[in-house]
């Protein structure tokens, strides 16, 4: 995918970099740091697991998720922004696929948690809440904010870990927002904006298996559409 001139440049740059590392006596691998970090993670994992057994699962899964997102350079903000600014839809297709996988996962979780016949929609795993004008306002704010800030929640955390200093301010901002607006002023916003919400839960209308089939079909159609648009633009 590159020309001979580019390859030449790349080799030259790599040699420069390796020589620089030898000069300042920095090793070419970071095995020592990796082992120390692994030790710290295991120690923290044990600490958390003693508080609540759930952490035995959440801790490794979270770390693995973050690691794979960082290595594959996944970005939710880019997946929604790129089709408009650049016309590339690769990330959007990846997000659609992950939505399909999560749909199946949540289907299983909800089936398991119901057990018997009757259930309350609010208590199901998946946080199904009423939607109304507040959903639209929140979505617009989040969308605008995430493009300006250069990433959304997962992207920010991942990049802070990688050493991208700007995202530390973004992290501070979103902690402040969550604590101030979400925790301290929650009642104020709830009374102001959460009016007449309607909780839509598909299986209430069409049953569980048809709902899953419908959701997967719609996502599949979206995937095909997005793929076709990529060829035209």
């Amino acid at each position, binding site marked *: *995918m*590159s*020309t001979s*001139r*580019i*390859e030449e*440049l*790349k080799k030259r*740059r*790599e040699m420069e*970099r390796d020589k620089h590392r030898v000069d300042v006596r920095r090793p070419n691998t970071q095995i020592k740091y990796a082992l120390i970090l692994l030790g710290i993670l295991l120690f923290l994992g044990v600490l958390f697991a003693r508080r609540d057994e759930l952490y035995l699962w959440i801790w490794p899964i979270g770390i693995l998720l973050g690691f794979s997102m*960082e290595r594959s*350079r996944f*970005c939710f*903000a*880019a997946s929604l*922004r*790129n089709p408009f*600014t*650049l*016309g*590339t839809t*690769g*990330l959007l297709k990846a997000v659609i696929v992950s939505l399909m996988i999560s749909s199946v996962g949540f289907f299983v979780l909800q089936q398991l948690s119901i057990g018997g016949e009757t259930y309350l929609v609010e208590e199901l795993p998946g946080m199904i809440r009423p939607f109304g004008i507040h959903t639209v306002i929140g979505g617009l704010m989040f969308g605008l904010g995430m*493009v300006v*800030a*250069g*990433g959304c929640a997962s*992207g920010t955390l991942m*990049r802070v870990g*990688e*050493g*991208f*200093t*700007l995202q530390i301010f973004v992290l501070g901002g979103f902690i402040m927002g969550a604590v101030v607006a979400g925790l301290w002023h929650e009642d104020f916003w709830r009374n102001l904006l959460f009016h007449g919400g309607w909780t839509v839960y598909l299986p209430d209308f069409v049953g569980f298996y048809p709902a899953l089939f419908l959701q997967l079909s719609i996502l599949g159609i979206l995937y095909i559409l997005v793929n076709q648009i990529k060829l035209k633009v």
Partner: protein
Amino acid sequence: MKEIYLDCMYEVCPIPLIKASKELKKMEIGDLLIMKTDHNCSITNVIEWVEKQKLKMDYVEIDEGEWEIYIEKT
């Protein structure tokens, strides 16, 4: 056959690519664009976009979390 150097360090996601696309429009065939960035999201974006434009590129990780991207206009 010029080499244009673009410094996009510490810039957030769309900016490096927008700067690059502006520069590429001004460049002629045979010119080389060197971009320096530390945002990993930009790399995926650049790779995808360059493939779409059918240009040639490659990149090097010169330091922990910093990359140099080479794009040649053919």
